[in-house]
């Protein structure tokens, strides 16, 4: 469990063009610099937006990351709902889900 490291990776990816480019060229070379466990590594490499959400990555980091990956808004929201269905409730942080996975509030 190294949510801080996982979040730091997404922080760097979202804001730093050099990290973005290095990640696009060879993600493995970038993620070795962060102390991640297997589940976190898999979530980033897939990428599994739903699992990243459940792991407790701050929603703002994840939203910007999904945008970086070009994931459309409604699809991004659905992937988080699917993540909760598959992996259970959000495990950490302040971005927990208050609705049910089958509910759509908007988008």
């Amino acid at each position: 469990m190294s949510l801080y490291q996982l979040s730091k990776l997404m922080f760097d990816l979202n804001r730093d063009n050099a990290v973005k480019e290095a990640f696009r060229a060879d993600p493995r070379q970038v993620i070795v610099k962060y102390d991640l466990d297997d589940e976190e590594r898999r979530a980033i490499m897939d990428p599994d937006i739903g699992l990243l959400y459940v792991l407790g990555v701050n929603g703002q980091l994840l939203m910007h990351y999904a945008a970086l990956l070009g994931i459309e808004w409604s699809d991004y929201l659905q992937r988080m709902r699917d993540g909760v269905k598959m992996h259970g409730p959000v495990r950490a942080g302040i971005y927990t889900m208050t609705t049910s996975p089958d509910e759509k509030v908007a988008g």
Partner: protein
Amino acid sequence: MSLVFVGVCSHAPGITGREERAPRELRDELYAGYATMRAALEDTKPDALIVIAAEHFANFFMNNMPSFALGMADQYHGPIEDADWLRVPQRTVKGAADLSRRIISAIMQTVDVSYCEEWKFDHGIMVPLHFLDPGNKLPVIPANINCQGPPLTPLHRAWAFGDAIRRAADTVPERIALVGTGGISHWPATPDSGRINEAWDREFLDKWSRNDRDAMLAYKDTEIYRNAGQGGFEIRTFISAAAAARGRGNVICYTPIPIYAVGCTTATMEIV
């Protein structure tokens, strides 16, 4: 007295990025609200604009998180987000390093503020600037209150920060405008995005408009989280703006727009 304008507004990325997905009349009402706010801002002929933002990890992270920060650079860049996603073009924004330095020094008399010679803007500043300064003319001084990574500064410190900005602005000869930007209740960047507690928002806006300091500072973060979501923590920016203005607020528009994920707000406040 050199604080010449105080206002608050929403900054949700959907306002620009998902612009066409809202009912047309609601979108138009909000966009008109920004236009009214912009006209009021321009009328005061400010030399610089301080934006009190609640940023979303464009600069500050849990490795070294300041409760309060001010920019001290001659230029800034943004947005950090994918330009097609946010639909706000990249721009280099003029800063005002010398003015920043004088304001920061004055703020430090009462509030320990971090200063930053580098600062990237995210939607939290870029969406407001897109509407309030479309020509990219105004020198901007970014300010930030940590509303993302708990522990968060108490509300009474957000008030103290706004009060310090006011006293600092009054010590400089330049004409200073101030915009606080945040959501009221919202659950952004979660599957609940679009949930809005309109009753809670209206009650908060009523307290804000009356500049009722004690009522605003009586909120507790546990209650904000329960009733207004993690996005509700951003009321700190509204509270700072109220502390700076000291007068009564005038809500130009309050329009809940679920696809934009927030009760979209624009307002000005009388400076006394």
